[in-house]
Every structure is written in structure tokens, then in C-alpha cells.
């Protein structure tokens, strides 16, 4: 068992400009946490920059697996090393590690298995693009219909998981755009999910992977995988 009970997983793909700051913020915010960077086969110096931050573990994946495969590597590590909790903080700097505390408090108070940091609940965060807001609205109604739950920010990757959800998601985690899909999976397995409002930043460097052209494709793909997850009784 490692020194900390909480593992901070930072998936990163070509984030050499952001990664160091994200790691340092995470270490400052959660001093008793361990930081694990999953370098998803970046072509820039993400791995080197991450190591330079110090007191950090870096997993260099041999080929690009996408966000789902990268985060699942974190779940597997957390499962093997016996962590009680795992929090995902994206390597692009959008998630503010200082807000992890809110996620942890919510988990303690509510006894949930996964806490989602939502940028649309209570707190004033930066405005995302209209396309993304529309997509999130569609998911909102979809989730209300399918699992009877109000999820205001189903695409948020800023999440805290407890041991139960770690063990489940280490076994299976969707490949691309896994966040909305994972909600259905956890619910289907009887795990409890809740949301808490957090502040988020607009990214400082680089661009989002979902461009307006890719949006409809993203929506279709996610909705299809949500549908399959919903119909699936076991895997």
C-alpha cells in the first residue's frame, strides 16, 4: 500500500505546456495523494516535463489508446496498488485540483461511489461552446429518461471514484468519450453517483479534441454506446 490513500490520475496527450503546472497544483492541493500521469504516447515532451515536476509516477503507453484506455490504465494501477480513492484530473489544465476537496467532501457526506465535478451546478465557470452545451442537454434528458437521474455535466472527466467504482471500471471502461457511458455502467451495477458544482478553467494551450465537425460524430457514437451499455446486463 502506498503512502497516500488517494491516487490522482492525470491522462495526458501532447500536453507539454500544461502538464507541469497541473501536477504541481495537484500536489499542492492534495499533499497526501500520489500523482500518476498516463502519457498516452505523446509525440512531444509530455513525459519528460511530467517527470521534471518531481515525486510523480509516469506511465508511458506504447501506443495511443485514447482517453478511455489511458484512464483505465489509472484504474488498473489504483486497483493493483490498493488505493481507496482515485480522482481524474485532465492534463490540459481545465480541471482545478484545488476543487478536489469539494469532491472528497461530497463523497464523505453522501456516501456515493462516484462524484462528478459539474461546471453547471452552483458555480460560475467559463462558458463552453454552444455545441457542447447542446450535447450536454441531450445527455441530460437521455439520462433522466434511462436512469432517472439528473446529470448536469455528464461529459465532465473531473471525477472522484471510490474503491468499488475503481474495481468495476478497471475491468471495463469504454474506449472513446467514456464519461457519459461510465455513468450508465455504474448505475447498472447499482453504484451511487452524485454531482457537485466546481469551477473549471478554459484551456490555456492547445485545442479541444472535439471540433464542431466532429461533434455530430461524437454525439452519435456516445449515444450508441450509451444505448448498448443500457441494454447490456453483464460483461
Amino acid at each position: 500500500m502506498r503512502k497516500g490513500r488517494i491516487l490522482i490520475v492525470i491522462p495526458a496527450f501532447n500536453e507539454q505546456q500544461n502538464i507541469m503546472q497541473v501536477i504541481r497544483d495537484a500536489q499542492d492541493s492534495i499533499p497526501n495523494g500520489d500523482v500518476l500521469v498516463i502519457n498516452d504516447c505523446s509525440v512531444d515532451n509530455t513525459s519528460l516535463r511530467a517527470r521534471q515536476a518531481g515525486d510523480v509516477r509516469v506511465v508511458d503507453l506504447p501506443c495511443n489508446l485514447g482517453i478511455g484506455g489511458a484512464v483505465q490504465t489509472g484504474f488498473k494501477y489504483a486497483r493493483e496498488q490498493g488505493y481507496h480513492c482515485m480522482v481524474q484530473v485532465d492534463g490540459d489544465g481545465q480541471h482545478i485540483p484545488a476543487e478536489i476537496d469539494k469532491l472528497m467532501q461530497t463523497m464523505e457526506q453522501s456516501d456515493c461511489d462516484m462524484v462528478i465535478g459539474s461546471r453547471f451546478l452552483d458555480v460560475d465557470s467559463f462558458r463552453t461552446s454552444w455545441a457542447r452545451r447542446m450535447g450536454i442537454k441531450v445527455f441530460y434528458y437521455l439520462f433522466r429518461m434511462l436512469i432517472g437521474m439528473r446529470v448536469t455535466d455528464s461529459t465532465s472527466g473531473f471525477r472522484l471514484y471510490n474503491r468499488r467504482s475503481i474495481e468495476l471500471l478497471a475491468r471495463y471502461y469504454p474506449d472513446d468519450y467514456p464519461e457519459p457511458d461510465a455513468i450508465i455502467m455504474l448505475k447498472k451495477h447499482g453504484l451511487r453517483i452524485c454531482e457537485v458544482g466546481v469551477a473549471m478553467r478554459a484551456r490555456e494551450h492547445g485545442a479541444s479534441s472535439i471540433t464542431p465537425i466532429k461533434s455530430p460524430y461524437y454525439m452519435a457514437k456516445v449515444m450508441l454506446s450509451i444505448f448498448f451499455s443500457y441494454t447490456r446486463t453483464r460483461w
Partner: protein
Amino acid sequence: MIASASSIDRIHLIGVVFSVLILLTVFLMVRARVMKEKYGLVWFFIGGFILVMSLERELMDTFAGLIGVEYAPSAFFAMLIACAYLLLLNMSVSISHLKSQNKALAQELGLTRLRVEELEQRISRLER
């Protein structure tokens, strides 16, 4: 209907040659371990199917009549397309399977590399 009969003969001949070629190629590939027996089996099935259909003209005509196609070679092509679809389906399943295996291996490799790195650091600290 001499023209149509001869065209059927020709397509049957093509079918025979084609299927024998497939069967022979697949046989050689499986023997040379270029193709797994599992996939070879699917190809053997399809090749054999085409061969039987090409040799037994009546079978072909009966089949065409069954699915309501007047022109027998069309039925033959329809069957070929159906076979191609089956093969593609088979390939998609195999690729999906390979992809998830590949993902698991890549994750395991990444995690193992980290462990090796950490062990090396511990050893070098102990040796100092």
C-alpha cells in the same frame, strides 16, 4: 435460349476456377501459417460453397428459383456478395477482439515499465 445457357456455362466455369483458386490459396496459406486455421475454415466454407454451386447447375437454378431470381447468374452474384458480407462481419469481430487485447497489453506494458523503473531506482539506491 442458347445465349443465356452459354452465359450460365461461362459463369459456372468462372465460378469453378475462382473457387478452386480460393481453396488452393487458402490451403497454401494455412499450411505456411500465414493464415490461422480458424479463418481458413471460413474461407474453405465459402470456397466450397461456390464450387458446389458452380458444379451443380441444377442446384444453382433451384436456388435462383427459390429466391425469385429469374437470371441464375444474378443469384450466384448475390450469394457471392452475401458471402463477402459474412466474411467482413467475421473480420470486424476479429478486429474488435484484437483491439481490446491490444489495449490490455499496452496498458499492462505501460504499468510494467513503471514497476521496472521503480525497481531499478530502488536497486540503484541500495547499491549506493
